[in-house]
């Protein structure tokens, strides 16, 4: 049931590391591929929203489950 092509574990990392790691991971993906990020930093919810808007990638999903945050980012282009 994997609806993503790569997963990034950013748990335990604080601002701005989840964003910086996500940027690096996205660089290895092709257009249309999806990166899943798992984070524990509550600030990452707004940050991934802003990141997607600024970079032109699509934030398909932003979800919280307990203390964890899950993001699905589709690389555009």
């Amino acid at each position: 049931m994997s609806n993503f092509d790569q997963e990034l574990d950013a748990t335990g990392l604080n601002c701005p590391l989840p964003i910086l790691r996500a940027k690096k991971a996205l660089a290895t993906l092709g257009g249309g591929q999806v990166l899943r990020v798992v984070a524990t930093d509550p600030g990452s919810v707004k940050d991934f929203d802003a990141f997607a808007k600024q970079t032109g990638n699509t934030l398909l999903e932003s979800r919280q489950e307990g203390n964890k945050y899950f993001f699905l980012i589709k690389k555009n282009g």
Partner: protein
Amino acid sequence: MSEKRLSIITTKGTLDWAYPPFILASTAAALGFQPYIFFTFYGLQLIKKNLDLRVSPLGNPGMPMPMGMHNWFPILGTALPGMEAMMTAMMKSKMKSKGIASVEELRSLCLESGVKMVACQMTVDLFDWNAKQDFIEGIELGGAATYLEAAGGSDITLFI
């Protein structure tokens, strides 16, 4: 989408104040901005090859200390030998436990992602530093006009 530009003047050389420029510049690069940092006065400490950045509770009533010490510990006591080293070690271990990157790591991420870094020639001369020997690679030297040229074409400019 045309590339946005961020330019920052960095003037402070303590562990806490090393974070804002490197966090913002590395994140800006990740967002597709073109970041530029101009280091002057004590900010030059942040581009030294061997970083020895510290925090001090002395003269900083806003700095929380362990065990609520900022409420009861005498101000003069914070000037005692070893206090600065102790507070710096505590701050670093607290940062590590919270998953906060080290200054070295953020600085490397900035360099990797193409953040342009310029050292102020006047203050390098003032402190008798040798840019080639003392600073990491990839640092250019420049003056006020150099900064203003970069800032003039920037969407965001910050003084830190």
